[in-house]
């Protein structure tokens, strides 16, 4: 290269770099060069006697002290925006932006939340009018947005499944973990690691990641359950369905079912799933065996959604009568199937099941009772109710309900209440934080067919605060996001096993052979069930 060309090249590079820096600076400007409403002229601001419209709705709620910044979009027209976030015991955070997208500096945000646990946090929004008179800049100040900072942390990580809202076709899906303190999302395992397929139900033992189970369906590597224990992963040669780890970590209760996809021709939701047959079983980790008992797998009942009590002495699950003959035919009265909530005591040392007790009956509630999840402190039982069936994520009428187990123990009566946080869309797939103060759940509110994750605070009396959607760095992220985020599970630590290690186990030929225990109308004892539609087929 001649000297002349070298200089030209250097000059061009400098120009391009400078232009890039300039563009970046302008786009991410937080005040430099802007006319700010400083303290002296704040009094001159127009006061508007209403809070500003912001998106997402982060108003009047309780927020975790360790949550990532709740960036938002000011939905008020203006040419400049100033936001001041203040609380009792720390410096005010001020953000000035030409864009209505407000990005809160992470370190200042965490400093503020941490210093003000249990206090209120106020957000003042100032908007410079879009067409100010030529002579003066006019700022409008809206009423402050007030939120409460909880005293208790939420678990640091949220694990969820990210998938498109299809059913019979898979392209890309994975299980991801989100660091709730920041915006970092990392992959635990996706279907690239086993050349396509489906991976779904995931469960953790005691909100920790040393014991994990993940269901895998792969045309190439078979249907299996991936079990992770203390840094080692192994593959169990069957699908275990919905899992629940016993608090001791010694066994996993699981439901084995035969799902069937339904397409509704005229409801406001299209896809629905019916369990044509199901039973509960339990996998004993050390013995590497799958067993069941007549108490949890009756021939004339459909059993699903197992959940252990906090002390591990009871297994709660849902049970509905099986009123149609075995086979693949969808019964005509599929929308009359309603599940009861029952429990069975279990002695882990003797491997003995007690008799079944009714907790809530669908006859009494008039609705199908599903997805029981018990708080780690053993006091609250959170569940869903829907008009029929078991797959509530599809049903817009599915709502969250709470039941006080402690009160029930004293009075002998199970009294439940519908939570105020419900919307007119489906609420489902809820999980507790390890300190029983937070819940994460899936909801389709505001996003139609796309499931999003919400988190909400539960106080000591079981009152649940207004939920907030899992925050993203870009507050408009969800407005064009075609992913659904489902089955959110709160865990206290990240999954450390690498995805390649997990993938290698899925791909590997080593697996724990499983003899199916008993009873299901199909398959016969000793055989594995056939998993047909909707997930067994794969196509381009």
């Amino acid at each position, binding site marked *: 290269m001649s000297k002349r060309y070298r200089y030209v090249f250097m000059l061009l590079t400098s120009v391009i770099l400078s232009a890039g820096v300039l563009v970046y600076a302008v786009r991410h400007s937080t005040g430099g060069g802007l006319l700010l409403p400083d303290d002296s002229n704040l009094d001159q601001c127009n006061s508007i006697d209403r809070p500003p419209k912001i998106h997402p709705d982060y108003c009047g709620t309780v927020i975790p002290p360790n949550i990532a910044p709740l960036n938002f979009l000011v939905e008020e027209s203006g040419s400049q925006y100033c936001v001041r976030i203040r609380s009792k015991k720390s410096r005010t955070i001020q953000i000035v932006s030409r864009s209505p997208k407000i990005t809160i500096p992470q370190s200042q945000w965490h400093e503020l939340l941490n210093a003000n646990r249990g206090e209120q946090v106020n957000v003042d929004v100032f908007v410079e009018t879009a067409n100010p008179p030529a002579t003066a800049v006019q700022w409008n100040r809206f009423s402050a947005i007030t939120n409460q900072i909880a005293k208790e942390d939420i678990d640091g990580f949220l694990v969820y499944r990210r998938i498109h809202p299809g059913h019979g076709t898979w392209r890309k899906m994975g299980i991801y973990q989100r660091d709730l303190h920041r915006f970092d999302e990392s992959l635990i395992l996706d279907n690239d690691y086993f050349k396509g397929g489906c991976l779904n139900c995931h469960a953790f033992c005691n909100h920790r990641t040393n014991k994990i189970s993940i269901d895998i369906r792969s045309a190439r590597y078979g249907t299996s359950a991936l079990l992770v224990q203390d840094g080692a992963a192994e593959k169990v040669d069957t699908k275990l369905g919905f899992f629940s780890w016993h608090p001791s970590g010694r066994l996993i209760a699981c439901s084995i079912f035969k799902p069937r996809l339904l397409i509704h021709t005229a409801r406001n939701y299209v896809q629905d799933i019916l369990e044509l047959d199901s039973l509960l079983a339990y996998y004993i980790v050390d013995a590497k065996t799958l067993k069941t008992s007549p108490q949890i797998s009756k021939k004339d009942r459909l059993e699903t959604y197992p959940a252990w009590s906090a002390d591990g002495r009871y297994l709660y699950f849902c049970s509905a009568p099986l009123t149609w003959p075995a086979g693949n035919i969808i019964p005509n009265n599929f929308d009359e199937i309603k599940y009861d909530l029952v429990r069975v005591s279990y002695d882990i040392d003797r491997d003995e099941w007690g008799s079944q007790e009714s907790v809530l009956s669908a006859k009494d509630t008039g609705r199908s009772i599903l997805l029981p999840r018990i708080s780690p402190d053993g006091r609250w039982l959170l569940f869903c109710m829907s008009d029929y069936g078991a797959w509530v994520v599809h049903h817009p009428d599915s709502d969250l309900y709470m039941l006080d187990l402690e009160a029930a123990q004293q009075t002998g009566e199970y009294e439940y209440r519908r939570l105020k946080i419900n919307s007119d869309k489906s609420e489902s797939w809820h999980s507790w934080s390890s300190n029983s103060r937070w819940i994460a759940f899936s909801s389709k509110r505001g996003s139609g067919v796309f499931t999003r994750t919400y988190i909400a605070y539960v106080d000591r009396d079981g009152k649940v605060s207004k939920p907030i959607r899992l925050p993203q760095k870009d507050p408009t992220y969800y407005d*064009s996001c075609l992913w659904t985020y489902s089955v959110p599970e709160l865990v206290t630590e990240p999954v450390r096993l690498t995805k390649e290690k997990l993938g290698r186990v899925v791909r590997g030929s080593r697996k724990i052979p499983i003899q199916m225990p008993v009873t299901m109308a199909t398959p016969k004892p000793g055989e594995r069930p056939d998993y047909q539609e909707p997930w067994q087929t794969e196509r381009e």
Partner: protein
Amino acid sequence: MPHSRPKSSRRIAVSQSGKPETAERHPSRGLEGLLRDVLFFIFFYFYLWLCVDLRLIYGPTEAITNFPVFYKGWAFFRTFLSYPGGLIEYAAAFLSQLFYIGWAGALVVTIQAWLLSACVGCILRTINLSRFCWLRFLPPILLLVAYTQYTYHFSMVLASLVALLFVYLYLRTTLPPTPKHRRLVAFLVLSVILYTIAAGTYGLFAVVCVTYELLFGRRWLLGISYLLWAAAIPYVEGVAIFGVSIFNAFSHLSPFSWQIVSFEKRGSFIVLVYILYAFLPLTILATALLRKFQNPKIQNRITSLLLKRMKFTINSPALRWIIESLVLFAIASTVVILSYDSKKKTLFLTDYYASHRMWPLLLKVCKRHPNDYFVVHAANRALYHTGRLSYDMFSWPQHPNTLFLSTRDYRTSYWRKSFVYLDIGLLNIAENGLTESLEGMGERPEILKRLALIHMAKADYDSARIFLGALSKTMFHDDWANEYLERLKSDPDLSQDKQIQHLRSVCMKKDYDLTDLNIETMLLHLLEKNRENRMAFEYLMSWYLLTGRLEKFVQNLDRLDDFGLSAFPRLYEEAMLVYVYSSRRPVNLHGRQVSAESRQRFNGFNQLLNDYGKDSQAALPALAKRYWNTYFFYYVYERQGRRQ
């Protein structure tokens, strides 16, 4: 700062003795060569633009499931930085969008082909294989075949172009007498960069470098060390640093990727990409082996004799240029003609016109290959939209399964079937099909557009806004999306939107599980919701005609009043005549008349059949000649599958 080299050393390769040798000048490098290249690529461009028409590949079509999605904005770009090969994928995704505009797409592919050709030429010259420079036309010809077959391998070809560019860079930076350690450094630096941007295609670069070093340079240790590095770099960079799966680390963006070979449609004509990948290393290998095993003296003698002979035969450079060019064009044209598949093109055109609602063109193209269920299905839809279904339906070979593509072969043709469901008012079934298509074909704008429409029609504005939000980030459908987003603000119920209002007026209201529903019930429910759902009516009548259920057909003739039709369509008249003739029962004409022409046709048909003693097989040729597009003919022959 590198020392400047003498110009003569720029085309130097190492001879067997290890001494540098000056490259021969090949005649194709001059102006005449350039002219040939220009002519060739002009032909290439116009062929792609006017004959292949890359808009058909943009589709969307179910035949191509790996066409990339592209969204504007930094957030979308950032996702491509998280794995090796992302940059090439991003560039390919962007450039592929230009297929939407036929001429622009053709230009992109032509430039790609020209760069490939130029790159191959430069590499061959650099390693002193100028005599094989004609091989540089192989990649463009392979591309022509690939596009003639309507396959999409753009990102892999782009990746291979970058890999070849890096090969050239390697050769240029390691011109003799570059010491081994500098060669190794050059290889490693280029490897790391190339792997980051082109992932598994890095293998092509590594193979060429290894072959070159082993067979041309005879640097055995270096060559073997390259092999080890070539295995280590994808693992270290891909698996350990980027954290991608081991499959993807070694094969992503290459034609050996599981994402290609595991899927029939994506792997269509993948052999062309294999040839594209293999021909350069094989050329180098073959040349080196020839050099090694042949006596140079004999070889030189043969070459000189051949050259003398050539000079004797073609001693005029102009004539030689013309002949060489003609040979090139003849090969290219032959390959293109041989690989041309008119049925495939018809199917792609049908897909394209059907999804863009270009009815007259669709009807025209459907006539080319009417013996395909999908073609007839599309023709029926076009006939309905042009008001000709009840007149010209039997101008195509019909079958009851063509109306809704209800055969097993089309069980998962969610995209193709969704058109008719959406038009007729089966919004949920269309939504389900489109949701599956979204997963199977990717987030294609046309799919997002239809999903947005369905959700707006169902007043599910939350979902619609998300689909519109995604669509507003696309390159060519953003205006449509933004317009609807604005309209949702000014008219939240979309009460002024005619298309939405139409969809609402026709959509099915009675809920069933789809598996319990047959076509007749479905259409009757649509008419129950809205008697004026004309498409449901015409499809119902067509269904009765196709299945030969003329009793039901005549029972529903009163519905013609709902559409203010004063006369019967031709096919309905013919069906009525068949019904009256076969059942000996009268038909309530609801104040209308059967035309004299139809009666005449019916009598003529019967007469001809009687002339053959009612032997329908014997009468077939004569009847087919005159009555091939009548319901009489369908009723007698095709309904019972009797036509040979």
